[in-house]
């Protein structure tokens, strides 16, 4: 398409330059009319028809029609929130098997079906390396299916303007072999039943009220407002693709989330003693 476009452009602009050239014989009006018919009508009709036919043929291949999807129940429900992603892995009955945030793991070579929702405003779910985007619209459930063909780590930015920190809303996608994926999935399901050991950061996390908004499986933290932090230590990034996942960055984000991510819902905890923040960050970073 790009090559074709370049050739058409070169031809038309070449003709334009030639026409602008003074030393040549004017053509007859009859010839000129044929040029309009040929170049302006016949040629584009043929080219556009072929392109359109190909595109329409391609559409259901990339995105199977709705009825086909109905048998293929969504395995993951993704919800866009300002400015992060709530990700729920669903079991066969369509109930939540477990929840996570801002990092998606998918098996390679299989089609995964997503149910897409929005909690507040319109977002758009897009993993550029895996396929086209689909909007997440309040009040509407959209369905999208994707089939990764290569293992690897991919970045997925929000593609619909969603407010102040739209630019800082991304998630990472880790495409893995099926056995690895199954092992990870199983361990996440079991995480709820595995109590987290004691840690000074753990106590501070609860004392400073973090659990009001965040959930961490294996602890009494069941807050629903902010992202699920279960095993946050194993994620590539924190703050929805904004910062590398280091202990210092976690501490920084707790201290001044608004400076890193303007318009974020989380209040700043800069008034806490540095030692407390670092302890919490150390504990969170170690949750793997």
């Amino acid at each position, binding site marked *: 398409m790009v090559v074709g476009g370049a050739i058409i452009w070169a031809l038309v602009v070449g003709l334009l330059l030639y026409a602008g050239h003074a030393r040549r014989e004017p053509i007859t009006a009859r010839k000129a009319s044929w040029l309009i018919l040929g170049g302006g*009508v016949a040629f584009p009709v043929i080219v556009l028809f072929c392109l359109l036919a190909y595109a329409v043929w391609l559409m259901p291949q990339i995105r199977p*029609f709705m009825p086909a999807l109905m048998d293929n129940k969504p395995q993951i429900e993704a919800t866009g929130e300002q400015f992060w992603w709530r990700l729920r892995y669903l079991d066969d009955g369509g109930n939540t098997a477990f929840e996570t945030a801002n990092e998606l793991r998918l098996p390679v070579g299989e089609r995964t079906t997503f149910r897409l929702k929005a909690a507040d405003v319109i977002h758009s779910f897009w993993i550029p390396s895996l396929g086209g985007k689909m909007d997440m619209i*309040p009040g509407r459930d959209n369905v999208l299916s994707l089939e990764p063909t290569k293992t690897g780590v991919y970045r997925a930015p929000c593609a619909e303007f969603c407010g102040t920190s739209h630019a800082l809303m991304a998630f990472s996608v880790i495409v893995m072999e099926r056995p690895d994926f199954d092992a990870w999935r199983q361990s996440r399901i079991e995480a709820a039943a595995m109590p987290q050991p004691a840690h000074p950061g753990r106590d501070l996390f609860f004392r400073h009220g973090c659990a009001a908004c965040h959930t961490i499986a294996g602890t009494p933290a069941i807050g629903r407002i902010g992202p699920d932090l279960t095993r946050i230590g194993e994620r590539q990034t924190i703050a929805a693709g904004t910062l590398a996942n280091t202990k210092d960055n976690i501490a920084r984000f707790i201290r001044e989330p608004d400076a890193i991510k303007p318009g974020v819902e989380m209040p700043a905890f800069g008034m806490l003693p540095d030692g407390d923040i670092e302890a919490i960050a150390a504990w969170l970073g170690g949750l793997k």
Partner: protein
Amino acid sequence: MSANVPLAPAPEAPPEIRAAQEERLRKVWTTPSGWRYWTSVNNTEIGLWYGAAAFIFMLFAGLLGLMVRVQLAVPENTFISADLFNQAFTLHGTIMMFLFAVPIFEAVAIYLLPSMLGTRELPFPRLSAFGFWSFALGGVFVCGSIFFNAAPNTGWFMYPPLATDKEYSGIGADIWLLGLSFIEVASIAAAVELIVGIMKCRAPGMRINLMPLFAWYLLIVAGMILFAFPPLIAGDILFEMERMFDWPFFDAARGGDPLLWQHLFWIFGHPEVYIIFLPAIAIMAMVVPTFSQRPIVGYSWIVLAAVGTGFLSFGLWVHHMFATGLPQMSLAFFSAASEAVAIPTGVQIFVFIATMLAGRVIFSVPMLFGAGGLAIFIIGGLTGVMVALVPFDWQAHDTYFIVAHLHYVLIGGMLFPVVAGIYYYYPLLDGKKLSDRLGKIAFWLMFTGFNTAFFPMHFAGLRGMPRRVFTYPADVGWDWFNMISTIGAFIFAAGVGLVVIDVVRPKKKQPRCPENPWNAGTLEFIGSPDEKWGVRSVPVIHSRYPVWDQKDLVENISAGRYFLPDSQSGQRETLVTTVLDARPVQCLRVGGTSVVTIVAALSLGGVFIALTFHWWLVTIACAVITLGAILYWLWTGTATIPESDDYDVGMGVRLPVYASGPDSVGWWAMFITMVGDGTAYASLIFGYFFYWTIHDDFTGGHAGPGVFWPMVALTLFVIAWGAMLAARSLNAHDRPRLTQAALGVAALLSLGGCAAGLAGPFAYEMDPTLYVYPAIVWVVAIWTVVHGAVGIIMQLYCLARSLTGRMTARYDMDIDNVVLYWHFMVITAVTSFGVLGLFPLVR
């Protein structure tokens, strides 16, 4: 009533008579001096102010664009804050679209059309002035908001629920909605003016197939404005009701749907692209034949192509919504329609190439900008073909690929031709040419700068860079593309700056260029920049390129040997001709210099501004002043009974001065306005049924307005309409007392209709904040009742005109136009109350 047109010019009058004629014309058409200069309504003044204002807004938006580019030059930049960035890109898009791209053509058209059509003025000069002042005030209001950190920050597309969130968008969204609604009013006013002007005010003999292509294009564009802007106005109403009174039109939790806004916005937004693009092509359609020194090849092809583009552009809007999860069948349909629009566009480009090939081209600065613009536009067109393909769009949508595409289309298809137009038409202003040398340098700066800035964006987009991001990470491979884009943007800006310098530099010492400096074949260059009367006499035209084909035309025009060489009445006069074959039917007296237009525009602006800040008393006060000003304007300036009904327009032809019904320009203006109004109304009804389609029970279990009250309202409005028909007929039979009685009865019935219309939703205690169904019922009812109230004012106006003897059996324009309004009113009332009262029963 119409006269046959004599082909030969009248014999030349003796010099002293001609001098006296010129003296009178000069006096009538003079532009006041001092502060009163700003009360002028001459098309050349209004066009110039309009154009200059639009250009200044463009430069301001350009600066915002540069700000955006600086912020994005390097990853993780902190040049401006996220919020300021969001305000800047929102305002950049909004200003470029609403305050530059559309108004600049209204400006050019108001400036050029009268002379191009060989006539003196457009039919409603005061309406042009009103439109300009509305535009200027609204524009300053919207632009100024960023200095108070209160600019809209939700993108120029204003998607709810982000834009309905008061906490996020603050007052900015209100400024966008109300400021732009105000400007849309100005746009529609201009559209009415242009349509009536082009259809009814051409030089005698200029049949519709002899019109300059520019007029054809502007006619099509004005028609498109009429159908494209009202859906947005309807959307704005719903939007502002949600923001101001919490009526949940777009709130999914209460039955609303954010997608309704997207539909209404893009039903406006896509034709908007062609509303911008077609007039630029229109300039090219004037420039190319002149510099090829031959008539355009394929006149009917290009007109058909333009009409086709206009129609198709209304069937494409969903291609902005390919990623919203609509059914694939409808995506395929809109994809096909989007591809199809490339065909008429291709025809237009090939018409230009064929014309150049068939002539001998003089390559000058306007041609340089025109050809360069086409080269850029074609790239934008080709990427447009790509993104119209659904699978490609799923990937490219909302990325920098689209940013590149739209700038290639709009800058290549609009800004470059506009600059070509500036270089081409500048001599009309003061008889001087712009500099060839500066023009060439400016062109190459703009051309290379543009491509450097925007070509890399294609790659950034394909590499996954989303639009509207205030920053981006360093390690994802977008940094170099962005750096190059920023450098290019500054080169481009330097080119634009050079054009500005060329335009504003003092040219006192520069010698004057000859009249018609490019030897154009159409009429716009024949007037002198020193005279305000436009053409010295209104010529008889029988060619598409009369200056080339009609021997001694210019001499005969300046010798006053055609129509209206004089103004015996001491008023501004122009000819009205028939729509298709331009036979003269009336000598129209157009409004002159007046302050009432400014008062009306500023007070209407006051209404919108006060609404933004919820100053209710100021709103009401301004609304009363606006109404008063408009009534004064109509009472003193329209449908005036002339001293004599039979007027010598020269060339031995006598024409009436007063016309009513379809012969008159006022009737057409009312008809066209009501078509636009009806489109807005249809959009609201579309909203009603849209909610019905997306819900199983669209009432959400809430009570409706019942059947009784809507039916009472419907009946009363139908009888009121009948009373209006009776009043018109009685007036035509010269029965003033009975006419007045019928008008009074009609007003009382309408008042009853209004009350009954509101009684339904009121009686059933429908609370519009609870759910979308009561809200949409209220909106439809209020819309209808407001129109009923306007209808009452019109009835009382006719009553007053009749009582004061200003409306008689012969001079019946007022009641004719009001009855026309009532035709639309009764359709509205029957539809509204029929739907509100009966549809809940049958669904």
